């Protein structure tokens, strides 16, 4: 896991220099982070608990994707908001 984070932190500025860097940062880091569950043994019961709390959440990855997706959407909206009113 740590190796993945190191690779991500080195690669992010490189990707960022070439494209819309914050989005690359988020996607790249969490694509790596979510690739392998840290605690697979507990995940099934926790997901059941989550579904009981919030019906439309299939599992934790969906929830994490919503939180990070919202951040990406907000950054994009804020970016166009800044440009539109500057």
């Amino acid at each position, binding site marked *: *896991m*740590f190796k993945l*984070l190191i690779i991500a932190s080195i690669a992010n500025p490189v990707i*960022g*220099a070439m494209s819309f*860097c*914050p989005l690359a*940062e*988020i996607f790249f*880091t*969490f694509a790596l*982070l*979510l690739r392998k569950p*840290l*605690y697979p043994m*507990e995940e099934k019961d*926790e997901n059941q*608990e*989550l579904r009981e*709390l*919030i019906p439309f959440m299939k599992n*934790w990855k969906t*929830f*994490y994707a*919503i*939180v*990070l997706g*919202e*951040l990406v959407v*907000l*950054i994009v909206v*804020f*970016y166009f*908001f*800044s440009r*539109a*009113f*500057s």
Partner: protein
Amino acid sequence: MSTIDWLVMSATILAIVAYGLYKSRNVKDIRGYLLSDKDMKWWTIGLSIMATQASAITFLSTPGQAFDDGMRFVQFYFGVPIAMVVISIVAIPIFHRLNVYTAYEYLEQRFDLKTRSFTAILFLASRGMAAGLTIYAPAIILSTLLGWQTDILCIVIGLIVMVYTVSGGTKAVSHTQKQQMVVILVGMIIAGVLMVLKLPADISFGDAVFLAGKMGKLNVITSPSSWSEFELKDRYNIWSGLIGGTFLALSYFGTDQSQVQRYLGGKSLTESRVGLLFNGIFKVPMQFMILFIGAMMFVFYQFEARPMFFNQVERSNVVESDYGSQYLELEKSYQDLNEQKTGLYRDLLSARETGNETQQAEIQGKLHSLENKAKQTRQEGIDLITQNNPDADKNDLDKVFLTFVLEHLPVGLIGLLMAVILSASMSSTSAELNALATTTIVDIYKRLFHKDKEDRNYLSASKWGTFIWGIFAIGFALFADQLGNLIQAVNILGSLFYGTILGIFVVAFFLKNIGGTSVFIGAVLAELLVVACYVLPLVNIDVFGWLDIGFLWYNLIGCVAVVLFSLLAKVFQNI
């Protein structure tokens, strides 16, 4: 403030305190007192986490920040959702599985006693003094604007917080924070709506947004256009927000006991995680809303007489001094410039309606020129204030929002907004006292001095711990005005420690082969490095000009340094 405002404010505060006392009436043991019997629902945890972070200064200074510098401060919070996800995946399962009372307790299980004690002491040192400032900072602003006695205000805020924090512990803190956060959100929404409604009749909401944008106040996303423009000392851009902000949020939410304690009281792992992710979803929009209120306040004051300097106490001092006539002349020039701007704003709106973009650009240029002149005039006024009194408070941005509240909101709502500010101050202070007492009792008292006492002994010690930290915080707040620049030093002190604490936890979570001694050496060296980064530029020693950086980056440097030094220490140990 009118009698009705006093009644609204007092009733709101007392109702919240009474609710906290009622909800925590059955606390009988240490688990109930420090972990709220692990019965918290996710919405209580989420609101409690938000309330802990949102101090009174957040609501006083943030609109002023947008008023002056635009909305780019929101980027500072972009790291929060990322940190919430990482903590949910990595830290919460471990804390829950080990059933710990403090985050530092885990470090002994992972490393050794000295690493646990070192980290706990770093936390107590930084957070202990910060608790006093959390009381002092809003008290000084309220006393400046309302003429209330700062000392009395500090004592009143401190004692009210102590009443429910000492008696009810974590349960009282979390339940009162839930109510406080609701009051805060409702109050801020009402203030924002009224601000727009109070604009001149010919200025619509759309016009206000258009004007704020043209004056550069809606600059939410800022980024250097090339690497040559990239400056580490620029605190608020998308890079410092996403990278520095993520590290800051990771250390604050993942390792600061005042936050960790909020989600350790969750009924289950799921409730804790959802509570934390709830904060990740709502934090950025909430800060955007508060900053947007600041941007609207900027537009409001373009059509309304605004003081050149919002701190009326400092203004009165300079007006009554030998510099008085000079200052009044500057004020007159400032008002003239504002009147010219008001006319141009209307011209700009007319040009927009006709679709004449050349004229729009021309008027915008004139407005920026006048705005710069007004800023220059204001700065000359501030210079006079400083010449008259070198110790004068030169920052008035934290008084802009409160000035609007006091001068333009109707009776009743002023009381509600005062309750908002006091609630914010109380929510942060109560969480800090609760966390300080928990760390003192669990990591120091129980672990190092009184290992095998009865539960009621620890419960009693925890209550005494909260009481003593409360008295310390009030005492620190009472003497804060004599500390001068030490206040700034205390704020910086926190950011100097956070990176190191986070680094210790990163090693604990991810580097399984690093032991206690290696991480301890790594942490001490990293702390020295971070302190050097801060101290060397102060004594004019700067390495290639690299050390003059925003404090947000200390979190990243401290964290990375702990990891690297721990790895090196491990290598040297193996040789």
